[in-house]
C-alpha cells in the first residue's frame, strides 16, 4: 500500500509542494484539505482581482490535480489525532502517514471596539476581495489600517475602486519593516501626490458606528477620520491552531516550529510556508515558502536539500512606485555605515549599508527607482569586495555626470547669449574644436570666460556622438598635462625647447607654452623671466603684472594674511599717488593698484620693495592669498590664532606655481568669517586644532570645500597641505581648479584622503620633499628682476623710443583714473595719466 500524505491548506506553498513532489515521484497517495472554495491561486497578485478584465489568478486546476492523483477535500481541518494519525475535517476523518501543514497565516485584527461592524474587512483571500468590491459600491471613503506592504496594496485597490482613500499607520512612517524614516517619507509624498491621505503615528482606538455600520475611526490622540469602509492590514499571524490543539511545539508568538527538513516536533508532521517557524522566524513572503516546499519534496524523495533560512529582501511596485529593501536594510550589523542618495524632487531615495571597512555591501533601501535592485541584491548576497561601493549609488562625478546635468537651455556664453543647445547643434553640424565653435556660435568671443565650459560641452557631446575625445594638450603635444608633467619630472627636462624636440612637434602655442612653463616652474622654481622661459609666459607672467583691457597693468604687493601695518598702508598709498594709480581693495584682503604702464612697473616695484613689500603673484597661476579673519587675536569667539596661521601659510606657499590659481583662507572659529570653505584650501579652527577643507571654489561655478581631515595640529596640517598641493600640481589638467580636479578625480574625496592622509600611494615623502624644494628656492620675483639688467630690458613699450603708448587714455572717475571707453576717446582726448615718467 502506498504511503499517504495529507496536506492541510491549498495556498501558494501547499500547491507548490504538491507540484514539486509530483514532478519527482508518483509514490505516495496524496490528499489535500482546502478551506477556500477554490484551488490555490496567486495571492501575491491578489490585487489584480480589481483589474479589468479580471485575470485568472488560479495556480492549480481540478483536471491537473486529478492528473496528479491528488484527492481534494474542500473543508476546514479542525483537529489532528496524532496517536491515530488522522486529521479531522468537520465530520470527516482522513488518515495519514505524513501530514503537511501549509495553513499560511491570517490577517491580524487588533482587538478594538467596533472591529466587527459591517464595512470592516481584511485583505487576504479572493472572498475578502469579492466582499470589499461589493461594499465599495455604496461607499465613498475607505480607510486602511496599517501602512505596511499589504496595507498599501489594499489602499491601491480602494483607489482603483474609486474611493477616497486613506492609510493609517501606527509607526512614524510607511512600510516600517522595509523602509527607514527618509524612504518612508518619500513614499508618503508619492502616495499623497496620488491623492491618498496618509496618517502616520496614529493609533486607532475604536471604530465608531452608525447603526451596525462603520462610520469613523477614533484615534488615541482624540482625532478621528470618517470612513464607510475599513480594511485591517495590521500584520499577519501564522495559522497554527491545529498544531497548538494537538500539542506540537509552537513559537512564543506563534508559528509551528520546524527544523531544516521542515519537520515539526512530531516526526510524522511537517509544516511549510507562512505557518512555519524556522529558528524563531516566520517568513511572510512567497519565495521562502516555495523553498520550504522544495526542501520537503526532496526530503520525502531522498534528496539532500535543507532549509537554512531565507533572505527577506523584496522588490515590489506599489501603486506604481518601485520599492526595494534588501539585506541589512537597517544597518544593524555592528560598525555598518550608511551611504544615502536622496532627491525628493526626482522622487528617488537610495540607501546602501556598507560593512565597517566600507568594502562590502550589506543591504539597502531603494524608493522610486529600484532598477538597480537585482545587481545590488546580488552584490550583497555574494559579499562581493568592492573598491568604491558608494559609486553604486552615485557614479564618480566624472565631469560627464556633472555636465550632463546642464540642460540644453542653459546659457553657456553670457556675452553672446549662447545656450548649450546652440553649441551642441554646432557640434552636430561639424564643429570639432573651440575655434570653429566660436565662429559658428560666437560663444566665447566676448570675455572668453566660458571657453572652458564650451570645452566641457564639446567633450560631452562628442562622447555622446561616440567620438573619441582627446585629452591632448594641443596639436603640439599628444599628451595630457598630467602625462607631460610626469615626462618632465622623470626625464628631468629643463626647457620647453628640449621637451618639444623630443615629445612634441611644430612650434608650440599659447596653450602648451604656458602649460610647460608652469610645470617647469612648479618643479624647478627657476625665474620665469629667464631667457629660456620668458617666451613661454602667458600675458601676466610675462611682465609679472596683470594686463588690463587697455594694455596697462595692475600691481598687487603681497600682504600675508591680510595683516598690514599703518606704515605699509601709507607706503602703498604713496606709491599709488606717485604713479597715478587707481586703487581698489581686493577680495583676497590686499590692495590692487591699476593703470601702470609697462615701463613704470620696475619703478613702482622698486618703491614697493623699498617699503618692505614682495611680489603678490596676482599675475601667476600660483598661490594668491591666504585670507584670514582676525581670530582670537581680537575676536571674542575666536579659538585659535587664525591670522598667525594664515601668515605662516602664505609665506610658506608664496610663489608656488600650479595648474591654476590657488586661494586659501583661515577662520578662527566655526563662524567661518574668512569663508574658508569657498577656497582651494580652507582651514577652520576648532577647540582641538584645525579642520582642513579642500577643493572649494567661488567664482563661476561655486563649490563648497570638503572636509579632508579634522582637529589637526599645525605640523600635521601643514604636512597635509604640502601633499595636497603637490598632488594637485602633479595630476591636474591645465587651468583646472582644485574643485573641478576633485570632481574628475577617480575615487573622489575618499581616494584623495587615502593619498594625502593615509599615504596609500607611498608618495607623501616625495611630495613633501618637492614642497621643501620650492620653499628653499623661493625668491621674490620682482626683487630678482630689478637686480637683472637683462630682465629689465623687457619693461619698455618701444624698443627704439622712450615715448609712452599714446593710445592709453585715462578719464577721471570718483576721484581716480580709469581707462577711457571708446566713446569717450573722441570727445575727451585726455592726456596720459599724470605721474612720474620713468
Amino acid at each position, binding site marked *: 500500500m502506498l504511503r499517504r500524505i495529507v496536506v492541510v491548506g491549498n495556498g501558494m506553498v501547499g500547491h507548490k509542494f504538491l507540484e514539486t513532489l509530483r514532478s519527482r515521484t508518483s509514490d505516495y497517495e496524496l490528499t489535500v484539505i482546502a478551506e477556500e472554495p477554490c484551488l490555490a491561486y496567486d495571492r501575491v497578485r491578489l490585487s489584480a482581482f480589481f483589474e479589468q478584465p479580471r485575470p485568472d489568478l488560479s495556480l492549480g486546476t481540478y483536471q491537473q490535480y486529478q492528473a496528479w492523483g491528488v484527492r481534494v477535500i474542500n473543508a476546514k481541518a479542525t483537529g489532528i489525532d496524532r496517536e491515530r494519525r488522522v486529521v479531522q475535517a468537520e465530520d470527516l476523518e482522513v488518515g495519514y502517514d505524513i501530514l503537511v501543514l501549509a495553513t499560511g497565516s491570517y490577517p491580524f485584527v487588533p482587538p478594538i471596539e467596533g472591529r466587527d461592524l459591517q464595512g470592516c474587512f481584511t485583505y487576504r483571500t479572493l472572498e475578502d476581495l469579492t466582499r470589499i468590491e461589493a461594499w465599495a459600491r455604496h461607499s465613498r471613503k475607505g480607510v486602511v489600517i496599517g501602512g505596511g506592504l499589504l496595507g498599501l496594496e489594499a489602499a491601491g485597490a480602494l483607489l482603483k475602486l474609486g474611493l477616497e482613500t486613506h492609510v493609517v499607520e501606527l509607526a512614524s512612517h510607511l512600510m516600517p519593516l522595509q523602509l527607514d524614516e527618509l524612504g518612508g517619507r518619500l513614499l508618503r509624498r508619492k502616495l499623497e501626490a496620488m491623492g491618498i491621505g496618509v496618517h502616520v503615528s496614529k493609533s486607532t482606538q475604536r471604530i465608531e458606528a452608525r447603526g451596525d455600520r462603520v462610520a469613523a475611526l477614533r484615534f488615541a490622540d482624540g482625532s478621528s477620520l470618517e470612513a464607510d469602509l475599513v480594511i485591517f492590514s495590521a500584520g499577519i499571524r501564522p495559522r497554527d491552531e491545529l498544531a497548538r490543539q494537538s500539542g506540537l511545539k509552537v513559537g512564543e508568538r506563534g508559528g509551528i516550529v520546524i527544523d531544516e527538513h521542515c519537520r515539526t516536533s512530531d516526526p510524522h508532521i511537517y509544516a511549510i510556508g507562512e505557518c512555519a517557524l524556522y529558528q524563531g522566524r516566520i517568513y511572510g513572503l512567497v519565495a521562502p515558502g516555495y523553498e520550504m516546499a522544495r526542501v520537503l519534496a526532496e526530503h520525502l524523495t531522498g534528496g539532500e536539500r535543507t532549509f537554512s533560512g531565507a533572505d527577506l529582501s523584496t522588490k515590489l511596485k506599489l501603486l506604481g512606485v518601485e520599492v526595494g529593501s534588501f539585506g541589512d536594510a537597517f544597518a544593524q550589523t555592528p560598525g555598518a555605515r550608511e551611504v544615502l542618495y536622496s532627491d525628493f524632487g526626482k522622487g528617488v531615495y537610495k540607501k546602501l549599508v556598507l560593512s565597517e571597512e566600507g568594502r562590502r555591501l550589506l543591504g539597502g533601501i531603494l524608493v522610486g527607482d529600484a532598477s538597480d535592485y537585482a545587481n545590488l541584491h546580488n552584490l550583497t548576497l555574494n559579499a562581493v569586495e568592492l573598491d568604491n561601493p558608494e559609486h553604486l549609488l552615485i557614479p564618480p562625478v566624472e565631469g560627464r555626470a556633472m555636465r550632463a546635468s546642464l540642460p540644453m537651455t542653459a546659457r553657456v556664453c553670457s556675452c553672446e547669449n549662447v545656450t548649450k543647445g546652440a553649441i551642441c547643434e554646432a557640434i552636430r553640424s561639424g564643429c570639432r574644436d573651440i*575655434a570653429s565653435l*566660436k*565662429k559658428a556660435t560666437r560663444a566665447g568671443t566676448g*570675455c*572668453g570666460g566660458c571657453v572652458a565650459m564650451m570645452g566641457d560641452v564639446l567633450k560631452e557631446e562628442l562622447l555622446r556622438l561616440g567620438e573619441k575625445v582627446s585629452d591632448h594638450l594641443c*596639436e*603640439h603635444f599628444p599628451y595630457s598635462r598630467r602625462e607631460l608633467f610626469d615626462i618632465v619630472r622623470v626625464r628631468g627636462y629643463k626647457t620647453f625647447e628640449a621637451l618639444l624636440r623630443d615629445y612634441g612637434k*611644430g*612650434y*608650440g*602655442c*599659447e*596653450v602648451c*607654452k*604656458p602649460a610647460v612653463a608652469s610645470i617647469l616652474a612648479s618643479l624647478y622654481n627657476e625665474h620665469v623671466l629667464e*631667457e629660456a622661459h*620668458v*617666451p*613661454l*609666459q*602667458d*600675458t601676466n607672467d*610675462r*611682465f609679472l603684472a596683470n*594686463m588690463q*583691457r*587697455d*594694455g596697462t597693468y595692475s600691481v598687487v604687493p603681497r600682504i600675508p594674511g591680510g595683516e598690514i601695518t599703518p606704515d605699509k598702508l601709507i607706503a602703498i598709498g604713496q606709491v599709488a599717488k606717485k604713479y597715478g594709480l587707481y586703487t581698489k581693495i581686493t577680495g583676497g584682503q590686499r590692495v590692487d593698484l591699476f593703470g601702470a604702464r*609697462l615701463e613704470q612697473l620696475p619703478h613702482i616695484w622698486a618703491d614697493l620693495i623699498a617699503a618692505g613689500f614682495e611680489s603678490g603673484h596676482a599675475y601667476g597661476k600660483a598661490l594668491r592669498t591666504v585670507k584670514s579673519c582676525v581670530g582670537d587675536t581680537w575676536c571674542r569667539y575666536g579659538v585659535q590664532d587664525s591670522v598667525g596661521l594664515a601668515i605662516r601659510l602664505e609665506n610658506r606657499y608664496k610663489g608656488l606655481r600650479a595648474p591654476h590659481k590657488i586661494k586659501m583662507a583661515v577662520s578662527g572659529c566655526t563662524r567661518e568669517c574668512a569663508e574658508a570653505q569657498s577656497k582651494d584650501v580652507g582651514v577652520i579652527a576648532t577647540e582641538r586644532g584645525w579642520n582642513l577643507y579642500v577643493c572649494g571654489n567661488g567664482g563661476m561655478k561655486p563649490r563648497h570645500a570638503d572636509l579632508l581631515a579634522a582637529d589637526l595640529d599645525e605640523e600635521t596640517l601643514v604636512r597635509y597641505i604640502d601633499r595636497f598641493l603637490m598632488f594637485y600640481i602633479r595630476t591636474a589638467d591645465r587651468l583646472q581648479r582644485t574643485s573641478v580636479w576633485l570632481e574628475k578625480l577617480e575615487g573622489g574625496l575618499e581616494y584623495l584622503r587615502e593619498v594625502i592622509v593615509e599615504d596609500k600611494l607611498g608618495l607623501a615623502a616625495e611630495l613633501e620633499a618637492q614642497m621643501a624644494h620650492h620653499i628653499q628656492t623661493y625668491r621674490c620675483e620682482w626683487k630678482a628682476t630689478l637686480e637683472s639688467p637683462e630682465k629689465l*630690458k623687457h619693461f619698455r*613699450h*618701444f*624698443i*627704439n*623710443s622712450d*615715448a609712452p*603708448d*599714446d*593710445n592709453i587714455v585715462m578719464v577721471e572717475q570718483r576721484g581716480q583714473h580709469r581707462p577711457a571707453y*571708446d566713446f569717450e*576717446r573722441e570727445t575727451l582726448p585726455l592726456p596720459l595719466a599724470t605721474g612720474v615718467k620713468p
Partner: protein
Amino acid sequence: MKWVRVCRMEDILPGLGVCALVEGRQVAIFRVGQRLFALSNFDPFTRANVLSRGLVGSKGERLYVASPLLKHRFDLESGEYLDDPSVRVPVYAVKLEEGDVWVGVPVSEAAKVGT
C-alpha cells in the same frame, strides 16, 4: 617705402616680440629662430597696442601671435585673423642687415594707428 632701423637682432629674444615706433606707427616685430615678422601692434578686437606682447604659436605650418588680451590669433605673415580671414591687421616689411633689424613702412601717409 621707407626703411627704418629699429634695433639689433640680439635685442629680440627668439620666440618673443618687441614694439618699435616707426614713423609714428607702432610696429610689432617677432623673431622666430632667425626669421623676422612685422605687423601692426594694434589689436583690433581689444583696441589696445599690445600684440608685441603676445605669445607666438604655430597652427600646422602657420605661425601666429595670440593677442595677450583675449587671445585672438593673427597670422605673422599675412596679418590675418585665424578664425575669420576678413579681419586682418597691417603687416610691414622687415629685414636683417648686418645684425640690424629694419622695418619698411609706406611713405604716403604717416597715420598713427589706433587713435
